[in-house]
């Protein structure tokens, strides 16, 4: 099962591509449909840390690849979140816990990339603070909403993929 993380990445990629297409639609408003944080929650419940970490890193690098973000910020944030989640599996024991985890994870990851990009930008250009802060707040709120709305469909696909490749189900009382 050493390659479970790669298979999970391939199963998750259509969602990431779909999020890019949705970002295309929202581009006029200046919003990104951010789902990288949601995508790591269901696998962290069932995969071992050694599998969840490369999976989270790859999800982060996929988002960063085509965007002017300082290298590695999102990937390492997602890795840190995945380490926390795999070490605290009781937090993801039931449906409300999982949903809460998805929202918090997506919000944290979104905050990390938005803050890192703003910091990188401020070295060359001082953003007008009011509008940037408003936009920042709206983007993070959107990420939280997306986390809540998309967690169930994404986790259904991921759980199906994990069942097919024989990843053991999560224990009810880990």
């Amino acid at each position, binding site marked *: 099962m050493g390659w479970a993380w790669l298979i999970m990445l391939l199963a998750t990629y259509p969602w990431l591509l779909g999020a890019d297409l949705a970002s*295309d639609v929202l581009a006029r408003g*200046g919003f990104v449909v951010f789902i990288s944080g949601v995508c790591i929650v269901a696998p962290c419940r069932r995969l071992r840390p050694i599998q969840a970490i490369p999976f989270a890193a790859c999800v982060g690098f996929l988002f960063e690849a085509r965007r002017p973000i300082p*290298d*590695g910020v999102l990937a390492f944030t997602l890795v840190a979140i995945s380490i926390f989640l795999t070490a605290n599996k009781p937090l993801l024991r039931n449906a409300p816990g999982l949903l809460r985890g998805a929202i918090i994870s997506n919000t944290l990851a979104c905050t990390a990339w938005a803050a890192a990009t703003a910091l990188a930008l401020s070295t060359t250009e001082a953003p007008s603070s009011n509008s940037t802060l408003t936009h920042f707040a709206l983007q993070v709120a959107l990420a939280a909403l997306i986390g809540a709305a998309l967690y169930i469909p994404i986790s259904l696909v991921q759980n199906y993929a994990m069942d097919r490749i024989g990843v053991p189900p999560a224990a009810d009382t880990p």
Partner: protein
Amino acid sequence: MDQNRRGARASYVALTIFLAVWIFMPSTVRRFNREAFTEFQAPGLHLVSKSRDLARFWELKSRSSEEMALAGRDLARVNAALELKLASLDDVRRENTRLREITRYTVPADYMSVVARVATRDSSSWWNRIVIRKGRNDGIRPGAPVIFGNSVVGRVTAVHLTTSEVDLVTSPGFRCTAFLEGDDQNSIVLINGLAGNSLRTPQARISVIPNDYSTGTLQSPKAFTTGMGGVFPSRLVLGTVDLDSKATKPGSSFKEGRLNPSRELYNLQEVSVLVPLHQNPGEALLQGDQFQ
């Protein structure tokens, strides 16, 4: 449970060590990593974009022959008008060549035009970008200007094998010089994209406008590229000028304004990339940019 926690502590230590290694790692390794993940996604983007083209093709294919005949008639009229215009431009071209010969004017850098379809658009408060379906394989290089008709769309910032990323005029990373329409002194102003355009049409900032400049009778004066710096050819339209009295600091000898892009940048389906036949200084600078 304790085993999980101990494992997590070890993982956090490993993450910190790896993070430190990552920070001090040569930028080539990080760039290779970024490039690898971009190339992994490129086929997906191509597939989606081509599916859209196919859907559009079938939508047009389903039109009735009467509609097509009407469209053909309209096109024939447009063609006739364009042929007349072409003939008049031929005279202008001859006159231009004659004047250049008289003044021994140096011909600006030549460009190779590469037409590319837009694959996706991506924007946030901190960037306004599009991804096009042409890349290194088609001869595109970083720093090349991207236009639509005679309007500037942006500049290529990163080139991959089959895709390229374009920073739009309104992106905070975009900078160029311009002339303003109606300015008899031909003062040079600075254009750069504006961050933080939340839920509004993206705009760029025009700075260093002389205080005595006024739009006069012009409703919406245009800003044109100067051709200096060797990136953009001269006299391309950047957008229309909106003088912003609020943005100007009191007592300052210069005014500021806003630039509204001449095209609806997020509706473009196709753009032209003007690849300079010879490398210019802007490209050399972009090649060292780590946030491509």
